[in-house]
């Protein structure tokens, strides 16, 4: 019996002919349908690193000040990625933690494209930060990022970076520190970083993040600095939200790290003079006089001082000041609090109150001389912050003590991850100027010559 040459017309359950050209469903040996999709055929000759290989090296001066820029609307994590793309990074080590996971995931994309030479996932943050130390000591340019509990888990090796004089760049996308568990933004972790001996910048927005990372590499690697740089931003507000970022073309990158110019020799396990790891450990107190450790600490902080010159050169200053001269009040803020302050200033202007803004970019070194000059004639200083402990207000108060008679309001504060209503800032400005009691900031957090000194003493006892 011969088969009909004419194919039988198939119909669907409704009796309509099936006209699609879908191939017959394939099954595996067990009879289950195979649902995976075959990888599309690609041109095997295409080099995924082709674009990265075409990047040309330019001077930092050209990159930062002369190269044409185009505007993009991107997230903070994307801006960090774009900064790393142009920074000639040798090694990046990741350990996922919210909200940094997106950043390091994107750096992984850069690795795939050949813009980062090495990339891997560490065991956890302690391992990541320790590996960054080893890599930097070996002479390569390193980048990593973490947040909140990850920062604290990695803090011991992070705190050893400056003492080892390790140039590296770590991005801290701040979130709350547990417990209780939460993943919302709160920049309390910055307070733990301030006394490590590293340089710490605080980015207000996506543009800051982009610029601070690139400039941080160059500042970090100056011979007379040779210190790690931490670039902090407020997680989610900056990392996940989009903002306009002016960026140079992708085809240019910074010069590579010149490790041979560092303040310490690069590590060579076999040859002196850097054979520290094979000889009496320089860290072991049995072999070290207290004096050398004391002097070593002095030298780390001297290097922090030396970085001021390069922060001025490449970043245009440790702070920015807007409309401070003759203002009724001054807001001193960093990070997202600076963004909220701008809106508060607009609302104050509608009320006829002239308010200036000092945005702190560099937390370490801290702009002490600049603040003393800018705040010399101030009457009211308000320091809004996204944390409970008022680490910025304390630094501001200590910096201008004896140089300004201003009343200092250590607040308003939000913490636990909430945003800061700008009305809270406006309330502190109007309340501070009129003498009205604040509903958000306790009297004990008011400092300066015109406030209750007993309350201030109480505040100082509690910090």
């Amino acid at each position: 019996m011969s088969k009909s040459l004419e194919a039988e017309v198939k119909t669907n359950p409704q009796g309509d002919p099936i006209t699609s050209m879908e191939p017959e469903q394939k099954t595996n040996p067990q009879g289950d349908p195979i649902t995976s999709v075959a990888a599309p055929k690609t041109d095997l000759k295409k080099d995924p690193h082709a674009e990265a290989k075409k990047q040309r090296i330019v001077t930092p001066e050209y990159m930062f000040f002369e190269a044409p820029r185009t505007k993009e609307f991107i997230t903070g994590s994307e801006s960090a990625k774009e900064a790393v793309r142009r920074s000639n990074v040798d090694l990046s080590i990741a350990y996922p933690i919210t909200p940094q996971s997106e950043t390091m995931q994107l750096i992984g994309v850069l690795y795939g494209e050949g813009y980062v030479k090495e990339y891997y996932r560490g065991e956890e943050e302690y391992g990541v930060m320790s590996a960054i130390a080893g890599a930097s000591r070996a002479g390569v340019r390193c980048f990593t990022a973490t947040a909140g509990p990850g920062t604290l888990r990695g803090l011991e090796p992070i705190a050893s970076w400056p003492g080892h004089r390790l140039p590296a760049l770590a991005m801290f996308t701040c979130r709350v520190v547990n417990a209780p568990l939460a993943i919302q933004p709160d920049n309390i972790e910055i307070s733990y970083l301030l006394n490590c001996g590293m340089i710490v910048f605080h980015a207000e927005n996506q543009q800051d993040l982009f610029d601070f990372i690139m400039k941080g590499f160059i500042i970090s690697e100056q011979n007379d600095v040779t210190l790690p740089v931490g670039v902090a931003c407020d997680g989610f507000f900056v990392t996940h939200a989009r903002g306009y970022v002016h960026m140079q073309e992708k085809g240019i990158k910074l010069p590579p790290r010149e490790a041979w110019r560092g303040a310490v020799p690069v590590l060579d396990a076999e040859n002196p003079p850097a054979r520290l790891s094979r000889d009496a450990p320089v860290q072991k107190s049995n072999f070290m006089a207290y004096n050398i450790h004391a002097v070593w600490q002095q030298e780390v902080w001297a290097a922090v001082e030396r970085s001021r010159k390069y922060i001025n050169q490449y970043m245009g200053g440790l702070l920015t000041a807007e409309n401070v001269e003759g203002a009724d009040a001054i807001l001193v803020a960093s990070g997202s609090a600076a963004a909220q302050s701008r809106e508060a200033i607009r609302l104050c202007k509608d009320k006829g109150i002239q308010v200036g803004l000092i945005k702190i970019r560099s937390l370490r070194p801290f702009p002490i001389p600049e603040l003393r000059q800018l705040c010399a004639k101030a009457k009211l200083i308000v320091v809004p912050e996204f944390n409970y402990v008022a680490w910025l207000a304390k630094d501001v108060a200590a910096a201008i003590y004896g140089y300004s008679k201003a009343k200092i309001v250590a607040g308003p504060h939000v913490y636990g991850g909430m945003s800061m209503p700008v009305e809270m800032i406006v309330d502190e400005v109007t309340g501070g100027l009129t003498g009205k009691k604040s509903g958000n900031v306790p009297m004990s957090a008011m400092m300066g010559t015109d406030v209750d000194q007993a309350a201030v003493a109480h505040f100082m006892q509690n910090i």
Partner: protein
Amino acid sequence: METTQHKERIIVPGPAGFLPPSAAQLGVMLPDPGQGLMYGILEPNEEEVIEEMARKMLTSPNATIFPGPLVLWAWNDHAVEKAKAVLEIAAQIPDVLIIPMPDYRPKYPRVDPEEVINPNHPNLTIWGNKIEACIFVGVHCHYANLTLKMIRAGTNCCTMAICAEQGHEDAMLTIRDSDKAKLERVAKVFKRVREQLGIKLPGNGENVRFTGLQSKVHGGKTHANPLAFMPSAGAVSSAAAFGHKPEQMKREA
């Protein structure tokens, strides 16, 4: 232009005391190219600083040159050339000591402070040899800074740093960007100042005074001609592993 002649000195021979603030904490900033630091004060003309270095090294008891790894180790041809230039400086200072800082490791169980200097306890070498003026050259900046701070704190030695990078604010006298050409210029300035001061070199050219161990290994001789110890380029080792290339260490054409 205001010069160092009209300002109060900040960084002077000590002992400055127990953990005195670093020069950076005292507000001393490093010089720009062509400048130097003289006792913590910016000197616009580095030549003035070099002349003061010469006067101090030629007139202070037990003047010593402390060469560090960057001129002791034959990283490359330029390092060898720099080492030769350092010996040319030494050749202008009668009775000068040359005590090496060969590496930065803590020495255990004990250091011989009269023979080597170590950044972890440099004061011992200064005390042991009663050194009142010294030049550090070829020391990596971090370790030079540790050393200079400790010497200022605990000794009366006038410290000088001839630096290949940005200079050292904790030294009483410092110049920067010191490559072979600048080191040779320093030697010429030392010669000129020595002649101005009427200080003569020994007739046989043997002006470098040996330490005890150096004397032993040289058959009991007390002095040597530094120019007789000229290192050769043939001794260059595999410093390429460190990324060092001669052109990278050169600053002047």
